[in-house]
């Protein structure tokens, strides 16, 4: 084993299951917010980006235009993941559309945690397919069960989701530059989250961290 995270197919499956369980709570939340089961499924298949989906149904029927804007803002980060994934994936035509749809937190995280191009590519596709399957299955289950299911936080699933992402970033924060970027991002995002609704805090926090990253980088060359 060259990587503490283990075989890429196992990681893809684990991430799919861990994320999928959270899809149950999305399905339940969406029907509770008043969307019907088909609309709930459509959100998971078509939007396929957990953060945006939760933001959309949280605003929901109270203001549909704001719901669209919130989902859009929370989704910006996927575009940045695409920038680093595009040279690795190298797709054309219809495959580019599938690759784009699968460009989310989890696929970027697994891909970035691997060290060879082949593993990064494999990590992207396997994780994308795994998360897509489990996320959508879970959405259906959650939507059917609705409020009957308990709070996923009782089972610590919110902590599991955060730990999974953290474990995937881990190899990249072993060098001091990565650690400083990550710490800055954590602190800045949390501070922004005190005053702004979900979405922008993580973006703004990441931008602060990137500026710090470039400052460190310049110091090294001069």
């Amino acid at each position, binding site marked *: 084993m060259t990587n503490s995270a283990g075989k890429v197919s196992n990681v893809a499956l684990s991430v799919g299951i861990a994320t999928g369980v959270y899809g149950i709570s999305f399905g339940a939340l969406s029907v509770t917010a008043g969307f019907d089961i088909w609309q709930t499924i459509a959100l998971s298949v078509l939007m396929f980006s957990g953060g945006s989906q939760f933001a959309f149904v949280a605003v929901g029927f109270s203001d549909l235009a704001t719901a669209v804007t919130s989902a859009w803002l929370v989704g910006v980060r996927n575009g940045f993941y695409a920038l680093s994934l595009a040279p690795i994936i190298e797709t054309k035509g219809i495959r*580019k559309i599938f690759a784009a749809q699968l460009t989310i937190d989890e696929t970027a995280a697994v891909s970035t945690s691997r060290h060879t191009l082949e593993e990064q590519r494999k990590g992207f596709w396997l994780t994308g397919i795994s998360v897509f399957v489990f996320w959508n299955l879970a959405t259906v289950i959650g939507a059917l069960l609705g409020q009957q299911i308990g709070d996923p936080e009782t089972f610590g699933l919110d902590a*599991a989701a955060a730990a999974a992402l953290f474990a995937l970033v881990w190899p990249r924060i072993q060098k001091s530059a990565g650690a400083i970027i990550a710490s800055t991002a954590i602190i800045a995002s949390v501070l922004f989250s005190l005053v702004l609704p979900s979405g922008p805090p993580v973006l703004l926090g990441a931008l602060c961290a990137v500026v710090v990253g470039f400052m460190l980088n310049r110091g090294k060359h001069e």
Partner: protein
Amino acid sequence: MNSWVAIIAASAAVFSWKYLGHLVPRKFLESKFLQKLAGFLTIALLAGLVGVQTFSGKNPSTGAHEVVFDARFLALIVAMVLLKLRFPFLVIVVAAAATAALLRLAF
């Protein structure tokens, strides 16, 4: 706005970011600067997300956003220790969930 229209519009809006990122010409992506930028951004976005998922909370009486150190924080500490000890991915994720669940059960 009709709710189906909102769902399609929001999905298209979210997809547009994903697709735009993949459309940036290779020529640009080959620049050292953009490669660095994309690499830094990925780490920073994921770390920021972990931060918000772990430390952001709402005051139960006022509803105001605040920084909280609760079961999620301890679960992340457990994950970090297990990562240092090079435990497999799945063990780390399960241990973090178990830590948070047990702490919530106890308090």
